[in-house]
């Protein structure tokens, strides 16, 4: 499949000399939600800004829908929508006007009916003629989304869409993002919340210090990198771990009824089969077994540790 966004050997060094992006390679496909996950200062905003044309690349190239973002910027920017990280809005404009402005900037004729529909979808219709400065933070965020969607983009960038947004609104935001994806819009969002990447992304790219550490399907990522935890509940409590089981580095709970076993799905042998045999041989009787997938958070911490 032809990627909708293709980034090749992209590097960016700011005038200050700071290298914010280091040889990024990434293909993004039509209709997916990809999350760029990384701590503050990782280079997420720089990466998005470079694709959108706000920052010029130092080296490397980007194509959007097959067009070069520098040489054929009219084609690429016409189909891109951007919701910036900060609540950057004028003060004295009315809501509907500022959305109409964004639409015009992207070379589209005025379409008040579509803007009203957008406002309805974003629960902003009653604020249509309100001044921007009178809106709450959550409303401003939605106005910014409205502006980004004003020209019906097919690729939408959301830079930390839920930073500083409360839990309830965050869920609303995720639903909105899913609806957009279902309508065929490709979505690239950045976040430093693992939970966010975990909940809505199809693929996750982990970025740190300007480098893209990996990009994986969310499920593959979790399978491939996730260490798992096996909880073994015993019928009768034991006072210590039997000699024959020490090599498994088990943890015994205080009440002596559960054993914890950590294993890594990256290893070809998880050691579970032999553990079971040895438990049996040690005369322990099992009551129950369950496994727990580690969260993206654990994966993330592991990755960053591995890097440093």
């Amino acid at each position, binding site marked *: 499949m032809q990627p909708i966004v293709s980034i090749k050997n992209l590097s960016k060094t700011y005038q200050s000399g700071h290298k914010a992006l280091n040889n990024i390679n990434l293909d993004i496909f039509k209709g997916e939600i990809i999350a760029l996950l990384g701590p503050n200062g990782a280079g997420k905003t720089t990466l998005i800004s470079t694709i959108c044309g706000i920052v010029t690349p130092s080296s490397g190239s980007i194509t959007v829908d097959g067009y070069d973002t520098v040489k054929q910027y009219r084609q690429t920017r016409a189909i891109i929508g951007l919701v910036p990280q900060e609540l950057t809005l*004028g003060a004295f404009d009315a809501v509907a006007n500022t959305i109409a402005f964004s639409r015009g900037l992207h070379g589209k004729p005025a379409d008040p009916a579509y803007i009203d529909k957008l406002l309805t979808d974003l629960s902003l219709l009653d604020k249509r003629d309100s001044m921007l400065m009178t809106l709450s933070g959550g409303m401003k965020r939605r106005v910014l989304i409205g502006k980004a969607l004003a020209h019906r983009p097919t690729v939408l960038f959301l830079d930390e869409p839920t930073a500083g947004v409360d839990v309830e609104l965050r869920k609303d935001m995720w639903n909105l993002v899913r609806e957009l994806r279902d309508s065929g819009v490709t979505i690239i969002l950045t976040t430093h919340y693992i939970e966010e990447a975990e909940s809505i992304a199809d693929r996750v790219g982990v970025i740190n210090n300007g480098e893209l550490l990996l990009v994986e399907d969310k499920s593959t990522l979790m399978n491939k990198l996730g260490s798992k935890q096996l909880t073994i509940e015993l019928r009768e409590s034991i006072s210590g771990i039997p000699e024959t089981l020490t090599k498994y580095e088990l943890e015994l709970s205080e009440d002596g009824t559960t054993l914890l076993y950590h294993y890594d799905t990256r290893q070809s042998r998880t050691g579970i089969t032999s553990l079971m045999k040895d438990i049996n041989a040690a005369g322990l009787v099992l009551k129950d077994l369950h496994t727990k997938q580690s969260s993206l958070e654990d994966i993330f911490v592991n990755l960053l540790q591995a890097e440093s």
Partner: protein
Amino acid sequence: MNWYAIGVIYKQEMLRTWNTMLQSIASPVISTCLYFVVFGAAIGSRIETVGSVSYGSFIVPGLIMLSLLTQSISNASFGIYFPKFTGTIYEILSAPISFLEVVLGYVGAAATKSLIIGAIILATAGFFVELNIAHPFWMLAFLILTCITFSLFGFIIGIWADSFEKLQLIPLLVITPLVFLGGSFYSVDMLPPFWQKVTLFNPVLYLISGFRWSFFDVADVSVGISLAMIVLFLTLCIAIVWWMFKTGYKLRQ
């Protein structure tokens, strides 16, 4: 050409004027009236005529130029500086528009606004003194050329400035003195010979002189030179804007 983009930028800028109507239009009108009272009535009662023109009429072209220059520069510089300041410039930078289109939108709006202000001042002046315009076509030409040139200049300042202080620096320290010393309120030959020479280095003198010629058919310097000077300055501004466009100066990192 992205005409819709030029259109919405132009419209937004004009709307901003509309919203700050009082400040944008009333203040030049009021200050013009004050100039008339102070210069026209107080000094005019002593001087009466400059050449064949009554002093009250004589200062009209200079007054209009004074407002035109300061208004063009402040409107255009503020228009592009403000989005930089609030961060909304991201939208302009990520839109499918060229620098030329950005310039046409912002500078076009600023120039239009100055033109309107110029017309209002002219009408206001009509209440105080009798005005006969000798060369209406040239008057309009000078008016429009000046509005465009100094709006472009303001746009350049707006992009260059990274603080409100810098934004006000050039108009305050350069433009206002040049206009006052450029023969707005007097004819150059009223000065001692030495200062007449010095004044010839003031580009604004040529503007005011040419503009005054279009009113009264009298000028301090030849009209051809006046016209050449303004075209020269216009070309210079276009060249700087073009260079900014090429290098992404202060806009794109």
